[in-house]
């Protein structure tokens, strides 16, 4: 009569991956079949070899080997993985393109307003057509231009006063033009005469 359990089932039994019903079926058969019991024993002996610590042992290199191995791998992997680098570059490239586009937009906007053209019409009427970023940029630039112009006038006044040797000229004062940035003038006040002359020359376009 053909045995109801095969060696596959026996191995699964030994591996402990059968459910309780199947396990009981194998046990019942083994009790009554010496041939299958012997086969199960042989298979278990092989598994016993795998499980024996003395036989499982693999001669391992000394600790120094593992440290050197770790260092070698760290040296080979210090750079970001190739795939990540290319991905990051693509990511960074998009950022750069976006930044370049924003700068271009601002300059186009400035150019469209004709801010650098002499005799250009007032910007106030055109600001409603601008993007918020353009409006902010324009405000900053207008402020800078105004400050520079007034600073040049202020410096000229200071210079004229210094050159004035008439009686009572030492008591004259020069006030900051109203509504301008005090920091520009604070910086100018720290300059000596020679430096002031240099700044004047630069501002006069010499």
């Amino acid at each position, binding site marked *: 009569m053909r045995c109801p359990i095969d*060696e*596959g089932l026996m*191995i*699964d039994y030994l591996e402990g*991956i059968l459910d309780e019903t199947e396990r009981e079926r194998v046990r019942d058969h083994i009790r009554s079949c010496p041939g299958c019991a012997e*086969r199960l024993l*042989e*298979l278990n*002996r*092989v*598994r016993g*070899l*795998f*499980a*024996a610590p*003395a*036989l*499982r*042992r*693999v*001669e*391992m*290199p000394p600790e120094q*080997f*593992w440290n050197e*191995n*770790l260092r*070698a*791998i*760290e040296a*080979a*992997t210090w750079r*970001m*993985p*190739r*795939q*990540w680098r290319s*991905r990051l570059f693509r990511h960074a490239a998009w950022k750069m393109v976006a930044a370049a586009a924003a700068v271009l937009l601002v300059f186009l906007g400035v150019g469209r307003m004709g801010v650098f053209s002499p005799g250009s019409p007032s910007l106030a009427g055109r600001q409603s057509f601008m993007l918020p970023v353009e409006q902010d940029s324009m405000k900053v630039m207008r402020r800078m231009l105004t400050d520079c112009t007034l600073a040049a006038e202020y410096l000229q006044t200071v210079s004229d006063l210094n050159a004035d040797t008439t009686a009572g000229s030492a008591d004259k004062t020069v006030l900051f033009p109203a509504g301008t940035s005090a920091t520009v003038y604070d910086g100018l006040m720290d300059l000596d005469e020679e430096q002031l002359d240099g700044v004047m020359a630069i501002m006069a376009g010499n």
Partner: protein
Amino acid sequence: MNDDILLVRRIKQGEHGCFSELVERYQKPLYRYLRRLGLEHDEAADVMQNAFIRAWNNLSTLHEEGNFRSWLYTIASNQAKNWFRGRSRLAVLEQSSDNFLDENADSDREMDREKMRHWLDGALNRLPAVQRQIVVLRAFEDTPFAAVAEICGVSLTAAKVSYHRALKKMAVWLKPVREQVNMQDGR
């Protein structure tokens, strides 16, 4: 395993130093696995290093971070196969069980263990590559069958069948060896 998930995620988020922790965790088990597959020390060391470097370079393709161990073993197994392809199997076959039978009788238990270990290595090397890989993973590394199947690139059923066949072969090979040992010991 959960630690693997955390480490892999941290590496992906830019903490590249965490990769060293994975290397420290797996370098010894991986080396042992490769040696049991039949690689010599130098070969196992090279394959192990290459496997880690490949894992590093391709970590972004590992979508299930919990599978790092299986994934690493798969890479190492593929590398090991390349070594086997380029190497003569003659030297391996010389370590067959017949050598054990030819050796002089010695009832010393320590010697028996050494001989059995030698026989076991020879028997493992006599198995076809996939069966050997499956036996090593399952029997020595205690890897679940599902992970064995994944590492070896076979179905779960095929992994089990291969394991069964390998064990049956080894049981057949072991029988005369055991009989000789028993005879020598008068058991």
